[in-house]
């Protein structure tokens, strides 16, 4: 009985965690999504979801919220991250801290504070639920966009930029043809970190008095009515959206890697 230690064994705790809290629940969700109350296999719940104008409406509404949030986050975060990466290394880190600092406080507390500021500005929040939702979502998710962009942009090799400048490219050209394409991996990981969570972050909607359901609230509403089947269907639909987005983003980052390798060889 000689015991030898393998490095692989370090993965056991995580494997157990993965099995108990990811794989098993996923199987349960899949089971519920494809069965009806009698326990027979059924696709009826899926069909019903796409047949009802209201539930499809909520899917689109969630997507619109997520798209707008992501777009605004990107528009704010890109210049910020760019400027941060161009300042000297030390002050850049300190400035970055200012953006990341809010993440250390629970987001419901931050939204509560933001809500009071918005109330001062607008008076009655209930007249602009959509705008307020977007403002709070952007506030909530902005650090998740800045971080990956900042990381990519600081690692960007300045010699590419210099080369472009030496060869006479205009400033706008340098940005569009060199910097932007090279920062695509950062954009992709920022987008995935913002887009998906903002589709289901229904607590924000509750807090700013937006009474319209998004996908997250729809799951909650089904579950509290003991409707595990329809709730699971929504979860599966979200999962499919995640898969599609991951597939697309993988393609982008892979293309990008391939490009760079080719570039290096040339």
């Amino acid at each position, binding site marked *: 009985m000689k015991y030898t230690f393998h490095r692989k064994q370090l993965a056991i705790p995580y494997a157990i965690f993965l099995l108990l809290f990811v794989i098993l629940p996923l199987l349960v969700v899949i089971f519920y999504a494809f069965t009806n109350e009698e326990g027979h296999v059924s696709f009826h719940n899926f069909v019903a979801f796409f047949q009802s104008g209201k539930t499809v409406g909520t899917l689109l509404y969630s997507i619109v919220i997520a798209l707008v949030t992501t777009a605004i986050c990107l528009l704010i975060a890109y210049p910020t991250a760019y400027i941060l990466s161009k300042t000297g290394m030390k002050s850049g880190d300190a400035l970055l801290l200012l953006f990341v600092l809010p993440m250390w406080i629970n987001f419901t507390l931050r939204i509560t504070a933001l809500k009071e500021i918005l109330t001062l500005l607008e008076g009655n929040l209930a007249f602009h639920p*959509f705008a307020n939702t977007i403002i709070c979502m952007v506030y909530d998710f902005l650090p998740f966009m800045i971080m990956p962009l900042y990381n990519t942009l600081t690692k960007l090799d300045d010699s590419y930029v210099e080369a472009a400048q030496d060869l006479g490219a205009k400033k706008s050209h340098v940005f569009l043809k060199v910097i932007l394409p090279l920062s695509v991996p950062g954009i992709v990981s920022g987008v995935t970190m913002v887009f998906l969570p903002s589709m289901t972050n229904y607590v924000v909607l509750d807090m700013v008095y937006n009474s319209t359901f998004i996908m997250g609230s729809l799951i909650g509403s089904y579950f509290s009515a003991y409707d595990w089947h329809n709730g699971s269907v929504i979860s599966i639909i979200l999962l499919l959206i995640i898969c599609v987005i991951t597939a697309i983003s993988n393609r982008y980052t892979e293309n990008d890697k391939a490009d760079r390798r080719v570039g290096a060889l040339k």
Partner: protein
Amino acid sequence: MKRQMRLKWIAAALALGMILGLAGCDADEEEEIVLRVANWEEYIDEGDWDEEDGFEFSDGTILCPELSMVEDFEAWYYETYGQKVRVEYSTFGTNEELYNQITIGDVYDLVCPSEYMIMKMLREGMLMPYSEAFHDKENELNYYVNGVSPFIAEVYDGLEIDGQKLNRYAAGYMWGTLGIVYNPEEVSEEQASSWSILLDDSLKRRITIKDSVRDALFAAVSIQYYDEITSPEFLSREDYSDALFQCLNRTDKDTVDGAEEILSAIKQNVYSFETDSGKADMVTGKVVANQQWSGDAVYTMDQADEDDVELCYAVPEECTNLWFDGWVLLSKGISEDPRKQQAAEAFVNFVSMPENAVRNMTYIGYTSVISGGESDKVLEFVEDTYGADPEEEDEEDLVEYDVTYFFGEDKDAVILTTEDQTRRQLYAQYPSQDVVDRSAVMACFDKEGNERINRMWTNVRCFDLKNWFQGLTR
């Protein structure tokens, strides 16, 4: 090698400790009964009162508990029955949460859901009846049957599901009505006295509705059948109460479709569907009217009083929902253990002691179903809290407020109080006879009805593609 030896010793020591520990547990378990109780959050006195909060009854006893109700119960049970009981007390936030917990496999002995959930649990065979001994009025330790209000007892007697009488399975705890808390500076009493206030254009985005299917549905159905239930013929019907109950419990397609239309319009008009924020938003003035349960209404008005804001409570003229939460024994938890059942029933009796009913009411603001029976303590509390001294107040401002229906004929339950209390805390805590007359219990719906209502709720709350422009811009 050395290291392994040491490990062995540690393992042996641990094993020994575990054996001893288990043995200790065994010995305890024979004496101690463990009672698993689940109740609503903040729904029982937790003790630690300040001296000035204390209340002195006319017999000289002073109510100023230091320990929580649960701890006091454990001591009382040991004194009275000579057995040790340990209460494992947990809380839940909604009836559905409790039900889900139980169906997932959590085991409780005694829980306190609302009337419709009691009916659902009874229908699904989850409950066991109270023992004969619990209903024995001769035993003075049976505080519940001896102290429950005659009005509540009558309501319980009238309720049944699938031929099973509810009063065999449930003992009441708190009860109340559903109404509107309003700010009298912005909203008139007449406005607040109809459910159609939720559609009132002049209060656009300054009124909230409960984020709960059943409470929202009740208001919508009341609006829908307003003409019918307020017609003179309907009001003078001999079976008025029963007819009102039937009407407000309709779940047929037309009713639910109509409710969907009304709730969609309400959604466009209200500030929000709120779960808990309505109370604070009323006090700060973000909203000026708020659909609310009577107990929370009392709490809201108390809070507002502290900030020098005057709020009132109105119960719509057409009808209100009479609700109550009650203690039920779960057969899976008790599992035919007579000692456990006795402890559970004793717990219900303990919280039903008149002084304990007063304790809970003071602490949580809701209304106990206990009127006190032989004891006058509950009535004393009401008179002390809301009664006015004719020598101190202007006599013109005083009115007589009759709650005999609740306390029974053999008590003098006419309270001399200031006029404003007929619109405020007293009115919310002990509604007048006419409010009770136009109240109806909302039962548990059948499967088909439930499905229809849940679909309706999803439709109301989901994004409406037809009004997408309106939905996105506002």
